[in-house]
């Protein structure tokens, strides 16, 4: 009789496939996972506490550091929440609204680019990684033109955006959008159509619709499990009701669907950007807001469809220049709590892939 025993394996905190400083303790039976325990908090910077000692405008750059793959969209969520609290959401100039949509969708392209690329890398296909990061780098260069930083642009302001974007930027963006569909065809051929990737990911770690709702799945992960939801369509914030785009929904809820849906969403983002560039009017980019932001006493909860799910801000104001309480609802923090159940019973090499398909960013998980 062969002697067997359970093996406890530490994955992380510093490991390329954990996508940040995240530790997971796996209990293994042979190569199969019996139990997984999350350990997070290595990147906790206390942003919610910091917000209480910063003015409303001062907190905008901090939101870039939440999900550092989608800085512009985080800023948009925060400024929309503060504008709703102040009751000035209808005073934002048209051109600023269009610029915000362009920024948010460009950032979605960059963020999904990371997910697609690192998914390929986690399956040990480094070629796909470079195809995706080639295009993501162009998106980051455009973001660099917007705000002077590739990851933390600090471009949105309460009442509009920091400055207008010039013709040169829009031409480059147009060119980028024209080139992208051919790149997506490459991803679909090289990655999604790849037999090895399909065998590794199809039917692995199926998340049913009920389980997705139970665990609070939002964004692309929820849509991969057959939940037809998209805040841009269902509760349009900003001017999203003016654009024509499809919301892709897949039914299987396995690792493969969570990967493929991101490529499908990138196609829709390109369409939104092209429509926004075409329709964008001339005009001011900043509303007349007071220099010192003092929202009335009260509270607000606002969320947007971020690249990884719903990003929400619950802000309580006591009428002073600083928020009384800022709560950041981060989608990946909640979705990561489903990882132990998703990984249970799977092969250890699949656990890496399941983690990549949730698309976590530890800056947002730990805040």
């Amino acid at each position, binding site marked *: 009789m062969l002697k067997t025993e359970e093996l406890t394996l530490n994955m992380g905190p510093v490991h390329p496939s954990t996508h940040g400083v995240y530790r997971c303790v796996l209990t293994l039976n042979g190569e199969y996972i019996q139990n997984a325990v999350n350990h*997070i*908090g290595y990147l*906790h910077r*206390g942003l*919610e*506490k*910091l917000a209480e*000692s910063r003015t409303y405008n001062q907190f905008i750059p901090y939101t870039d550091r939440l999900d550092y793959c989608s800085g512009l969209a985080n800023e948009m969520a925060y400024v929309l929440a503060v504008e709703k609290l102040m009751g000035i959401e209808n005073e934002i100039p048209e051109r600023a609204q269009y610029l915000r949509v362009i920024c948010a969708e460009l950032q979605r392209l960059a963020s999904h680019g990371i997910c697609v690329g690192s998914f390929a890398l986690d399956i040990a296909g480094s070629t796909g990684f470079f195809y995706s990061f080639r295009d993501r780098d162009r998106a980051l260069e455009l973001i660099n033109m917007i705000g002077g930083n590739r990851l933390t642009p600090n471009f949105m302001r309460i009442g509009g955006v920091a400055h207008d974007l010039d013709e040169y930027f829009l031409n480059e963006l147009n060119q980028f959008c024209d080139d992208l569909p051919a790149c997506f065809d490459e991803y679909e051929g090289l990655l999604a159509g790849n037999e090895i990737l399909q065998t590794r990911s199809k039917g692995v770690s199926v998340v049913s619709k009920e389980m997705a*709702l*139970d*665990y*609070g799945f*939002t964004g692309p992960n929820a849509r991969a499990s057959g*939940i037809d*939801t998209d805040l841009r369509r*269902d*509760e349009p914030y900003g001017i999203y009701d003016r654009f024509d785009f499809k919301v892709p929904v897949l039914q299987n809820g396995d690792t493969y669907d969570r990967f493929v849906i991101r490529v499908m969403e990138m196609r829709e983002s390109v369409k939104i950007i092209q429509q926004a560039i075409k329709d964008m009017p001339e005009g001011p980019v900043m509303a007349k807001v007071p220099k010192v932001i003092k929202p*009335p*006493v*009260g*509270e*607000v*909860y606002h*969320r947007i469809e971020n690249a990884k799910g*719903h990003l*929400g801000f*619950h802000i*309580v104001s006591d009428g002073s220049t600083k928020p*009384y*309480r800022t*709560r950041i*609802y981060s989608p990946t*923090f*909640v979705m*990561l*709590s*489903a990882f132990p159940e998703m990984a249970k019973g799977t092969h250890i090499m699949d656990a890496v892939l399941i983690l990549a398909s949730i698309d976590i960013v530890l800056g947002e998980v*730990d*805040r």
Partner: protein
Amino acid sequence: MDKIVNREALVGELNQKFGQCAEIFEDNTNQSIKVKPDKIVEVMKELRDNPNYEFNLIMNLSAVEYPENFTVVYHLNSLTYLHKVTVKVELDKGNPQMPSISSVWKAADCMEREEYDLMGIVFTGHPNLKRILLADDFVGHPLRKDFKLQA
């Protein structure tokens, strides 16, 4: 624009089913109801399962320390009707303790752990109420107002 549920009907239905447990909470959002802490699990189950409301997604769970009490705030959303409601629970300042709703939504599990960690609210019946973001030997709850930043 937010689509808000009919609060009068909702509160009436809850009070009829579970005894006086809910009331309308007046604030600037006009979408809040207040629920007694000991009835929260039944109320949340009802909100999730009642076919007229179907609040199937918990959008957010946060806690606020006011001078007079701790308030735990649940933001609920229905993907079927696209309406929302905010459920507030007021807790005693000296002993902030309430039942856990992690049996209703597993998503509440990690958020309750976070509020326990940072705000010091004890959720009874939680399967694994430990610190989640801070180290296990950390002393204090940073989001409380008496916790001063040192820099």
